[in-house]
């Protein structure tokens, strides 16, 4: 740096004005107001809705645990869908994620792998579930397949990113010993990514548990079908019972996956 130039004017700017940022934010505000007006939101509707919501909540109490068998069967099936889809989804994500990692693979390998991931990510699990229900019929199989696809899209991408962030120096050292590629993967890549992989896998299991209670709504098996029927029959007390059990199951899963993550730190 040279000495301060005495000829410089006063009031120099320390920060550059971010005009593109300001314009983008302004446009966002304008569009939000426009969209809200266009969709016909009104204060009256909101107030009426609050009252109806209150009635609905009142009818939920007390929760009805009478039809236990139906509830248990549905939950067990949801759990099975979640575990099966997580297992196969994560298993398939491993090679897809590896092939998509640009620091270990040449472009002609990463592009197809990235395309697969992008396709798997492009739809919500429910939409994929509808496709699979049409393809393989009603039942848990459709739900499992739908969540496998969703898992590949999500976990595959995270795996690829985790691999792209490893230290290549460690890989270089193992490669320099003359190790073949698979041994490099096992001894130099896997140790660096394992804790993050475990984290993503348990997170996906959590996520699949939530989704497995939903795919039933479109015929993909699990508690979702029972829940949907209960809604339509206005059995709101039974709905609450299902919701309580679902929340309990997800909280238990959350605790368990926390333990697993800690063990692999």
């Amino acid at each position, binding site marked *: 740096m040279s000495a301060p130039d005495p000829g410089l004017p006063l009031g120099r700017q320390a920060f550059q004005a971010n005009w593109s940022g300001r314009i983008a934010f302004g446009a966002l505000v304008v569009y939000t107001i426009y969209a809200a007006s266009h969709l016909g939101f009104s204060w009256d509707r909101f107030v009426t809705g609050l009252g109806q919501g209150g009635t609905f909540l009142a009818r939920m109490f007390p929760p009805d645990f009478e039809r236990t068998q139906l509830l248990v069967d549905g939950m067990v099936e949801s759990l099975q869908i979640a575990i099966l889809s997580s297992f196969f989804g994560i298993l398939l994500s491993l090679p897809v994620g590896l092939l998509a990692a640009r620091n270990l693979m040449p472009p002609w390998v990463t592009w197809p792998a990235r395309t697969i991931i992008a396709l798997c990510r492009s739809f919500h699990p429910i939409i994929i579930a509808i496709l699979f229900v049409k393809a393989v019929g009603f039942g848990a199989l459709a739900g499992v397949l739908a969540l496998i696809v969703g898992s590949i899209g999500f976990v595959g991408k995270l795996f690829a990113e985790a691999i792209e962030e490893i230290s290549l120096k*460690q890989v270089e*050292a193992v490669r*320099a*010993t*003359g190790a073949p590629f698979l041994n490099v993967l096992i*001894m130099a890549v896997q140790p*660096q990514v*394992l804790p993050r992989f475990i984290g993503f896998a348990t997170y996906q299991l959590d996520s699949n548990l939530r989704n497995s209670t939903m795919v039933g709504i479109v015929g993909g098996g699990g508690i979702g079908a029972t829940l949907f029927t209960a809604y339509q029959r206005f059995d709101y007390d039974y709905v609450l019972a299902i919701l309580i059990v679902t929340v309990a199951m997800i909280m238990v899963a959350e605790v368990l996956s926390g333990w697993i993550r800690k063990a692999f730190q």
Partner: protein
Amino acid sequence: MNAAPGLVTESGQDARSLVIRDLVKEYRRNKPVLRGINLTIAGHGLTAVIGPSGTGKSTLLRCINRLVEPTSGEIKFMGQDLARLRGRQLREARRRIGMVFQEYNLVERLTVMENLLSGRLGYVPVWRAWLRKFPQADIDRAFGLLDAVGLERVALRRADALSGGQRQRVGIARAIMQEPDLILADEPTSSLDPKTSVEIMEILSRLAGERDIPVIVNIHNVGLAKRFAQRVVGMTGGHVVYDGPPDGLTDADLKAIYGGENWLDERP
């Protein structure tokens, strides 16, 4: 191969010599980092390569085990031209060449023992690496080397729990685990304090000397080079400008290698 030190065949010495001819490396076209290196390195003893930063010392070493692809030239070693090898042949040649890195390049989340055994990964099938079922002979040798570098107590400690000096000892032991015919050490002491640097150079020259493995060391510290090397190669601007015994290295030579002369007065 027999692991016992001192049993290396006398006839093997010539086979271990390294002949580099007209080696050129360009990272970008027409901007060569190495401008036609010619060197013959005997199959024993420690050779130090000195020279300013960015002069191609690392590139030279990495061309030998092909972590960097040479642009042209020959690297003759054990009857093969390393510059031409591909695939399996290249991996098999790399098994015979150990490497020690400036930043140790240990696999941080593996234990010291696992890092040592990774020196055997060129020989061990995938399932054994996966299940950590390394041959008992390798494990015994690894424990022997840990004793030799003074790390017998940390075999099961993770590499990221070690100090810099300890890590570099593991790095050296990993290279020796390969039972190499050549060791390349790329600035092995540059990340270490002066006292540890001397210890590391002592370990490197002792372990390699006992096994009669030739060593090529890139090193910044001229004092260390003079102390441990039997031969010094001075490089500047991608050329070799000095090649001879450490005693023959004069101030005029150092000036030719590093340029300028003011720094010469600051030596302790």
